């Protein structure tokens, strides 16, 4: 226990329990397994060209587009995903397991296939294509398509995280709130949401990260045009065709952005 430990923040004299020592060793190995490749990649970067590479017009455009679309997708995921998680965790209806499985499907679809699937629905000749055409909306080749593709692949992450947290935290406090006169809406806003905040945050980070790294579905569904649909992963892929070093440099940029976003936003706290 360092001195700062015992004087600040959440350290309240409560003893940490339930972490056998061997798990820390195994955990360290796991962290190493993820960290080594990233270090290995960093060692390959040609630092003399790094600055020029990551500030090129194409790279900057791609990064901005990526950030913008990933943020919008995350918002959409939250909007739709939290109700979906609530429905799966709290209510019972026939076919629930099938619905849950369907919701998880985008996880397992290779992204390219996800893109084909999206084309078959939102494309000009897709299931809903005519509807959109009548409304004067063209989705394919637009930034909207990028957001849709990212939302499609990222949504299951949010749903699953939130659902698991909802199940683990139980419904006792919701019952108390209801007897105190809170309508279902109030219960949701003032009790359920704050209680699942840790799961919600980690789900949102997962969804954002997945959206930020999305490649296959975007390429297949939205295409690849600088400033419109060419996100950073697509730019990386393209760079790689001519200059592997440039690709690695851009990938490192992506890693850095992701790290910043995650360190800055991801602070779930327990409530026990």
């Amino acid at each position, binding site marked *: 226990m360092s001195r700062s430990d015992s004087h600040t923040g959440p350290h309240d004299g409560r003893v940490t329990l339930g972490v056998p020592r061997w798990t820390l060793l195994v955990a360290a190995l796991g962290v190493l397994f993820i960290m080594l490749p990233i270090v290995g990649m960093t060692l390959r970067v040609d630092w003399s060209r790094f600055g020029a590479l990551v500030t090129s017009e194409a790279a900057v455009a791609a990064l901005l587009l990526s950030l913008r679309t990933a943020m919008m997708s995350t918002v959409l995921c939250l909007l739709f995903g939290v109700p979906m998680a609530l429905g799966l965790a709290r209510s019972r209806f026939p076919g629930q397991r099938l619905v849950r499985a369907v919701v998880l499907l985008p996880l397992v679809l290779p992204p390219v296939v996800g893109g084909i699937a999206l084309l078959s629905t939102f494309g000009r000749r897709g299931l809903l294509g005519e509807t959109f055409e009548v409304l004067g909306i063209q989705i394919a080749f637009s930034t909207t398509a990028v957001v849709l593709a990212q939302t499609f692949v990222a949504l299951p992450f949010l749903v699953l995280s939130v659902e698991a947290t909802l199940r683990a935290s139980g419904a*006792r*406090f919701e*019952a*108390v*709130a*209801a*007897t*105190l*006169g*809170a*309508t*279902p809406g*109030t*219960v949701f806003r*003032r*009790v359920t949401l*704050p*209680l699942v*905040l840790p799961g919600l945050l980690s789900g949102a980070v997962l969804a954002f990260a997945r959206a930020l790294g999305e490649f296959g579905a975007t390429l297949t569904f939205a295409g690849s045009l600088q400033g419109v649909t060419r996100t950073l992963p697509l730019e990386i892929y393209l760079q790689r065709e001519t200059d592997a070093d440039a690709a690695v440099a851009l990938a490192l940029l992506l890693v850095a952005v992701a790290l910043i976003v995650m360190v800055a936003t991801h602070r779930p706290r327990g*409530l*026990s």
Partner: protein
Amino acid sequence: MTFELAAVMRRRGLEVAFTVSPGETVALLGSNGAGKSTILELCAGLLRPDSGKATLDGQVFFDLAAGGADRAGGADRADGRRPGIFTPPHARRTVLLAQEPLLFPHLNVRDNVAFGPRSAGESRAASRLLADEWLAAAEVSDFADRRPGMLSGGQAQRVAVARALAASPRLLLLDEPMTALDVAAVPAQRQLLHRVLLDRSVILVTHDPLDALALADRVIVLQGGRIIEEGPTRSVFAHPQAEFTRALTFGLDLSASP
């Protein structure tokens, strides 16, 4: 505010019917597992009975016919759904103080107590003022800004009482509200409850005959999910019939009073 209840819940072996008059406090007595908490949860709307009916001052809490499976000649609906009315908890304006305090861990003590008024549509400021009044009444004002996780057991219990009372329910359901209180606090809390309960319909679960005596107009004694004894507190305690009631009142000498 007459409350009328008749409910059957087979899973818990419960079958009861009773009435609470306006402003009356009824104590539910009975051994562990007799069904006291179950009755409160049925009244609050957290449990749905197999069948029965409950109304408060004309508002139907539930009205459920017996399931078709058990009724040989009943008007069984083809789709197997039991027809009926069920009012959700929030629309009942009953408040349940459960056996555990269950304070919201993410709100501080004041906001816990303000939760009821807020849900009833009071402004944030008004709710907090109200909360502070109730916290003072329960003698826990000192902890208003703490998170519930930082309270002792008895402190949490008092906050839970304050929270229940602050919601100003039409029907108040109290499950052992004096648990975990220290001996010095009990008289004050009993007084607080007494004051509050005077003009409200209340169902109070307790294991303490003194609480029943001090607070309840009438007692209902349960055993195995059925009512085995019922009547004005003093007369039941003076002439206990059931064995449980005799054990409960043993040593309290009430035979002299009317």
